[in-house]
């Protein structure tokens, strides 16, 4: 007997759900006659569904009766006034053109990202206004070693090279031109960890001694294949900002892995440019 009561209860719940799903259409009078009669019969015996139906009927009748009146008379005049106004010109670019522009932009962006120097922190991009030759690099090294004694170079050809290297303001981080070329072509793999960059500048204005030290650093870095360099006294690491020095700038971009320490003692260096100073002249 109890099982039967439970089953009847289940059937009742199921019937209630069916009825409630159709109550809106029932209230709108939008159900077939047979279904209408079934729902009405259920509502007579189910107080819960009846309450639901009454609440829905009240709400929908209020909604119908709150229907706004017609449009104001001025609407047609407004429409004509709107027609008289100049239509805004909307440029419609064809889909093909938009796609082409998008692809070209993406290509340019990819190329830029690929070519940026920060992508290769271990790699030394050579500052070249005109692509100095091997001799120019050697001359620059020679000039950096003995800035006052560039006249001591015996060969007139080499002397001209020294002068042109000084004009170009370059210091060779590489020993030979093929090395430089390969360095230019060499693209190291992207670091998994994000690299942090530091700019290292002299503590005071660049003197000949500091220029020499910078040159030595570049040389050392070159010999060490740009892997490591110990920071020397007199150089201040400045985080994430570029410091301009009056009489030329020595910019050494360094990269280190975060979390090792505030300023690591040994860092990877990337010599970008060392300008030959116009100092120490009598």
């Amino acid at each position: 007997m109890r099982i039967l009561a439970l089953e009847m209860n289940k059937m009742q719940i199921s019937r209630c759900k069916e009825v409630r799903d159709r109550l809106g259409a029932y209230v709108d009078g939008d159900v077939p006659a047979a279904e209408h009669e079934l729902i009405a019969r259920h509502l007579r015996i189910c107080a819960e569904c009846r309450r639901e139906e009454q609440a829905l009927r009240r709400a929908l009748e209020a909604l119908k009766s709150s229907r706004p009146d017609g449009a104001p008379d001025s609407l047609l005049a407004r429409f004509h006034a709107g027609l008289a106004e100049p239509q805004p010109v909307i440029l419609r670019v064809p889909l093909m053109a938009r796609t082409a522009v998008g692809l070209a932009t993406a290509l340019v962006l990819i190329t830029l990202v690929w070519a940026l120097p920060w992508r290769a922190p271990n790699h030394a991009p050579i500052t070249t206004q005109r692509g100095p030759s091997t001799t120019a690099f050697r001359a620059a090294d020679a000039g950096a070693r003995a800035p006052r004694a560039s006249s001591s170079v015996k060969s007139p050809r080499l002397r001209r090279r020294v002068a042109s290297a000084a004009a170009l303001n370059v210091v060779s981080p590489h020993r030979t031109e093929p090395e430089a070329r390969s360095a230019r072509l060499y693209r190291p793999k992207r670091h998994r960890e994000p690299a942090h960059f530091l700019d290292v500048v002299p503590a005071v204005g660049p003197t000949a001694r500091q220029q020499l030290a910078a040159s030595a650093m570049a040389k050392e870095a070159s010999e060490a294949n740009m892997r490591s360099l110990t920071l020397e006294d007199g150089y201040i690491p400045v985080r994430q900002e570029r410091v301009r020095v009056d009489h030329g700038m020595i910019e050494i971009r360094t990269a280190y892995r975060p979390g090792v320490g505030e300023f690591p003692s040994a860092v990877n260096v990337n010599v970008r440019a060392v300008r030959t100073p116009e100092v120490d002249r009598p």
Partner: protein
Amino acid sequence: MRAQEQTCPLRWSDAMSCERTAATDADGELVSRFLAGDRSAFDVLFLRHQDYVYRIAVGIVGDPEDAQDVAQNAFLQAYRSMGSFRRGARFATWLYRIVVNCAVDALRSAKSRRAVPLDSVARVLPDTSGGPEAVAERHSRDWIVRRALAAVPIQYRDILVLRYYGDLSLEEIAEVLKCSVPAAKVRLHRARIAFKERFADLGLGDE
């Protein structure tokens, strides 16, 4: 069976179908005249549909001033894109789709996000029959209805407005909203429930 059919109340769609068929034919003729170069035919179309368009706009955006803007924009858009109107389609459903889109766009703009002022509701309802008390009661009830309607999510509000302010059948609603008739039926059911709950929350559901 016949006796049972006679006891059944008049169905919504049946009540509207005859009137709509005639209206659709007349709209088709007017559209043809307009496309043939008779610009005045659009004025006739405008006058035939302006009340429905305005009601739908008011129902969705709430504010009568904004609704006038929406109606104007919808008619302008319809006028300018009449060349893309597919022959054989119903002009009314095409126009109502434009109105719904314009109203939803207006709602999304910052201007239409402000609250509906009380006096704006009064301006929509100029009916003054029954004396001041009846007018006040009606305004109060309508204000609550508007509040409840504004609280209903937009995807349910548009279908409620199309159904109860625009007098559209389920088939026409499906055409306007670009969905199937069963989908429109389900959406309308949920919309009714949502409105009933909001209406009850505002205190008029349990009289």
